[in-house]
């Protein structure tokens, strides 16, 4: 299973004075099993790129293929392939519409033509995924929830479609740190169990460093860097700065310490890991 992006260019408002090239010549392949992070400055084309991946918009030039099927096609096969790529938009809570939380989550599976038992099972599963208790929330109106809870319902609505690829556009914007950690730990758990591949757009470098197995850096509609996140953070700081993004604060600190001659594991992604190693050097081998 793979998503193949063949040299795509996308122009908003072609032929008008407001014409804007949002993507130019992006070419990449995303394999099943990858956890891809996408970073880039505001307006660099991240949202535009990911909307191509499940056929919501079609490239002005180039093609997007999922398992070799062109998403721009009108065939039943193309529609089915589009549904294997699930998308959680920026501020997804704005798309809720049903009377109850359970019905809203059931919208996707119903559209896929699942049986009622299957729909019900998927709703249960999706709600436990996002950490919403079924008994408490299933019958409530989604409009009487807090913003963070609405976000979870919206994410559950996409999870219930059981996508092979899960795309998340800034899923943590406006969530409290606990909520963010919970959602990411669930995503990571399911990813590690092999439930889906993940494509994550985020401005939070920490999340990216902790989760992603591959990093794409966008700058003015082009994909300028593509590779292992740590390699990019450690060896391409100038390019990152030019692209208007930064390295994770932890990596920055460790690089600084290393520059001062203190031996530290600069590839650490968790604070605990770095702190332990640092304590070891300082106290002569004793871990805290």
């Amino acid at each position, binding site marked *: 299973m793979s998503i193949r992006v063949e040299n795509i260019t996308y122009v908003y*408002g072609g032929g*008008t*004075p407001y014409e804007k090239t949002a993507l130019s010549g992006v070419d990449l392949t995303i394999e099943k099993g990858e956890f891809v992070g996408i970073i880039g400055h505001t307006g660099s084309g991240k949202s535009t790129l990911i*909307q191509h991946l*499940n056929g*919501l*918009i079609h490239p002005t030039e180039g093609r997007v293929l999922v398992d070799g099927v062109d998403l721009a096609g009108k065939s039943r096969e193309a529609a089915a392939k*589009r*549904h294997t*790529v*699930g*998308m959680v*938009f920026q501020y*997804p809570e*704005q*798309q*809720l*519409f049903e009377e109850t939380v359970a019905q809203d989550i059931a*919208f*996707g599976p*119903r*559209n*896929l033509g699942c049986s009622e038992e299957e729909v019900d099972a998927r709703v249960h599963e999706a709600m436990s995924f996002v950490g919403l208790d079924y008994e408490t929330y299933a019958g409530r109106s989604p*409009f009487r929830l807090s913003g963070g809870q609405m976000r979870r319902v919206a994410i559950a*609505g*996409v999870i219930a*479609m059981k996508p092979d690829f899960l795309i998340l556009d800034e899923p943590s914007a406006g969530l409290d740190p606990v909520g963010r950690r919970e959602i990411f730990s669930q995503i990571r758990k399911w990813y590690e169990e092999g439930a889906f591949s993940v494509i994550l757009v985020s401005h939070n470098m920490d999340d990216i460093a902790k989760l992603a197995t591959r990093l794409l850096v966008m700058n003015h509609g082009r994909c300028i860097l593509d590779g292992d996140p740590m390699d990019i953070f450690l060896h391409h700081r100038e390019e990152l700065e030019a692209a208007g993004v930064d390295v994770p604060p932890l990596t920055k600190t460790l690089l600084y310490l290393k520059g001062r001659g203190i031996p530290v594991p600069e590839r650490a992604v968790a604070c605990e890991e770095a702190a332990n190693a640092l304590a070891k050097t300082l106290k002569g081998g004793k871990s805290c």
Partner: protein
Amino acid sequence: MLTDITLGQYYPGNSFLHRMDPRAKILCTMIFIVAIFLANSLWSYLLVTAFILASIAVSGVPVKMVAKAVKPLWIILVFTLLIHVLTTPGTPLVSFGWFSISEEGVRNGILMTLRLVYLIAFSSLLTYTTSPIVLTDGIEALLTPWKRVGVPAHELAMMMTIALRFIPTLLEETDRIMKAQSSRGADFTTGNLWQRAKSMVPLLVPLFISAFRRADDLATAMEARCYRGGEGRTKMHQLLYTWRDGAAFAAVAVVTAALAGMRWFL
């Protein structure tokens, strides 16, 4: 895509027409549209054509854009043409049994259709060269004298401004919600009428909710800035007549007079 719809269809520029006062533009457009209906001879049509082409040239708006404004109304144009061609009695040109096409019919049909094309093309110039906000300013100023007979000029203008301000936002939002629901398998395009109406629910509910929320926010924001209607309100951008407006009025007056002359004295 939905957001490709250009509403208000302003074409940014810095031409003579762009820099005219909106009041003058609105009045000139109205006068010239009436004048178009004075044209009834070949020469007068040539004069109208020349004036419209000159205006387009001065505006800097590509002819393609003007044609785009005319295109959506093609059904009305074809209908007008057919009605005239088929129903005007006169010297038969060709006849098929029970109905015949007359020379006068063809002539009237073409002239009437041409009039409509001119009318649409010329008024599209007004919206192409005036940003919606400036246009409402102009309308408000023109309506202000009618306040005395109960026309709520300021309120109308404010409503128009707000509507214009939110149309793009709502279109963008519709587009986004549509995409979000389609990626959950919603289908807005196939099925019978009932199915399609039902498929609108997942789109309309979130849209209404956000529209009400926005309206609420806007009302609060206006109140927080002490908005209390048009009484005693001054403008940041004062409307000013300049030599351009005088020149435009003069040009329209000359053309109108010429058309009137050709109609009644030639």
